[in-house]
C-alpha cells in the first residue's frame, strides 16, 4: 500500500520535473527526522511506485521514470553506506540484459533496487550461456532478466534450460516490452515471475523470496 503523504507527493513532483535540488531538500528533511530504512520505505519507494504507476497509466514518460530513478539512486548513494543497506539479508540476486544493447530497462530497475536498499550483481549484457554460468558461479538465487526484442525474450528459455540442467533452482524474474505485449510469454519461457516496472519487479522479488510465483 502506497503511503501518499505530503512529502511523497512533493518528491514525486520534484522527480518528474527532474529537479535534483528540490528532491534532495525533501529527502534530507525526511531523513533528518527518521531512519534511513523508514525514509526508503515511506518516501523513496512510494514515490517511485507512484511514478511507475503513472507510466503504466500514461501520465508519466519513460524519460521521467529514468531520471527519477537516477536521482533517487544518487540520493541514496550520498547516504552513509552502512545505513543504506536496507535488505542485507535478501538472497543473492543479479540483473542482466540478454544480448541487446538496449539497457534502459535494466538501468531503471537497477537504480530503483539500489534506491530501495537492495544489493545485487549487475552482469550487464550477456548471452544465455554466460548468464547461466555467472548465476551458478555466484550462487544467485534470484535473477532479473530484461529484454527488448522478442528474439531475446525467447532466449530466457535457454537460460532456464541451462539452469535446470545444472540442478539450479534459481528463480527468474523477467521484464521488458515483449512481456508487456504478450501476457503469457513469461510463463512460456519458464520464468517464475514478470515485472512490468520497477515496483512490480520488487514485488516479484518479494514473492520469490517467499517461495511463491505469480
Amino acid at each position, binding site marked *: 500500500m502506497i503511503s501518499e503523504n505530503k512529502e511523497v507527493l512533493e518528491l514525486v513532483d520534484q522527480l518528474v520535473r527532474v529537479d535534483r535540488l528540490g528532491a534532495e531538500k525533501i529527502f534530507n528533511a525526511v531523513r533528518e527526522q527518521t531512519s534511513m530504512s523508514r525514509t526508503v520505505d515511506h518516501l523513496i519507494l512510494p514515490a517511485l511506485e507512484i511514478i511507475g504507476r503513472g507510466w503504466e497509466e500514461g501520465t508519466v514518460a*519513460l524519460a521521467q521514470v529514468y531520471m527519477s530513478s537516477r536521482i533517487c539512486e544518487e540520493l541514496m548513494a550520498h547516504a552513509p553506506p552502512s545505513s543504506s543497506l536496507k535488505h542485507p539479508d535478501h538472497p543473492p540476486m543479479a540483473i542482466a540484459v540478454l544480448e541487446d544493447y538496449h539497457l534502459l530497462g535494466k538501468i531503471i530497475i537497477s537504480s530503483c533496487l539500489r534506491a530501495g536498499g537492495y544489493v545485487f550483481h549487475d552482469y550487464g549484457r550477456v548471452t544465455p550461456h554466460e548468464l547461466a554460468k555467472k548465476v551458478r558461479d555466484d550462487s544467485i538465487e534470484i535473477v532479473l532478466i530484461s529484454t527488448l*526484442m522478442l528474439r531475446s525474450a525467447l532466449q530466457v528459455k535457454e537460460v532456464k534450460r541451462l539452469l535446470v540442467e545444472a540442478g539450479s533452482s534459481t528463480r527468474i524474474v523477467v521484464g521488458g516490452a515483449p512481456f508487456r505485449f504478450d501476457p503469457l510469454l513469461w510463463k512460456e519461457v519458464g520464468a517464475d515471475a514478470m515485472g512490468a516496472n520497477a515496483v512490480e519487479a520488487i514485488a516479484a522479488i518479494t514473492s520469490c523470496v517467499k517461495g511463491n510465483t505469480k
Partner: protein
Amino acid sequence: MIAGNEKSAMTSMERVLTTLGHQEPDRVPLSLLLTIHGARELGLSIKEYFSKAEYVAEGQLRMLKKYRHDCVNPFCAAAMAVKAFGGEVIWYEAGPPNSGEPIIKTEKDILSLQVPELSDTPCLVRMLESILMLKEKVRDEVPIMGIVVSPFSLPVMQMGFSAYIELMHERPELFNRLMEVNQEFCVAWANAQIRAGATVVCYFDALLSPTITAGVHRETGFRIARNTLARINGPSAIHMATAATLPVIEDVIATGTSIIGVSIMDDLAELKASCQGRLTILGNLNGVEMRRWTPEQVEKTVKEIIAVAAPGGGFILADNGEIPWQVGEEVLTAVSDAVHKWGRYPLVFHNE
C-alpha cells in the same frame, strides 16, 4: 458482417490512395510490415538475404504475391542508419539485426560528428537499389514504403537510451548539435528513397510518444518532425512503434503527415474518432502475440479491428511495427484471408 455490393477491384495503389483520401476503396488495404521474412522465402539466412538488393526485391515480390497485401517494404533494420555513422550491426539467426556498441561516448564525439555520405554506406545503397528494382516491377500499382529513423529517435542507438535522456535534460547545446547532424542525414536519406521510387516515407519516431518523452522535450521532437517532414519531397507516415499515440494526435496532424502507425497501446475506437477525416490509421495487430494465434483468433481479431477502424476509409490494417521472425506463414496467411473475406466495402455488420 457480410460483403454487400462489392466495388470493382482496385490496384493496391488505388486502394491505399482512396483510403488516404478518407473514402472507402474496394476493400481494407493490408500492409504487412514484413522485412526479414523475405529471407525465409528465399531459403537464406537473414544476413545473406540483405547482402544483395536482388534478394530483397525478390523476397518482397514473393511475399506480395503470397500474402496478397498492398505494400512492399525493402527496409532492413533501423541499425543500418547507425551503420552509416560508423556503428556496428549485429546479425541474428532468428530476428532483425540490431545496432551494437554506441558510437557516441563523449562530448567530442558529438562535436566531431559529420553527416555521412549515403554512397559511402553499402547497406543504404543496397536498399536504394532494391527500391529501384521494385519500382520497375510494381510500377505505380503497389506503394513502396521507404523508412527513416527520425533525428530525434536515432540517438537511442547512436549513444544509448540512458545517455541520450541525460543529454536531452542536461546538455541542450550538444543535443541541438546532434539534432542538426541527424536531421541533415534523415532528409538526405528520405529524399534518396523518394528519388529511387518510394511512394511514401515512414518516419519512425517512438520518442514522440508521451510514453517516452514529456514536456519541452516532446515539443522539441515534434518541432524537429515538422521541420524534417517539410523537407522530405514526398508523403510521409509517422510511426511510434509500440508506444501510445492518442494523446498527441493533434501534434501528429500538425506535422502535415498523412498516416499514423499505432499499436494496441491505444484504444482504436478513440483513435478513429480523433483521426476521422484527417489522418489515416496504420495498425494495430499485436505483432508479439500473433505468433501463437490460431486462424480462428486471427479472423476474430481482424474482424474486430476492421469493424472499429475501417468504416469511412482512412485505415490500413497492419501490425504494430515489424512482424517478428517467429510469426509463421499460417498466421500471416490467415490475416490476409480474413482481410480479403471481411474487409470488402461496403462493410455490412451483423449483430454477431
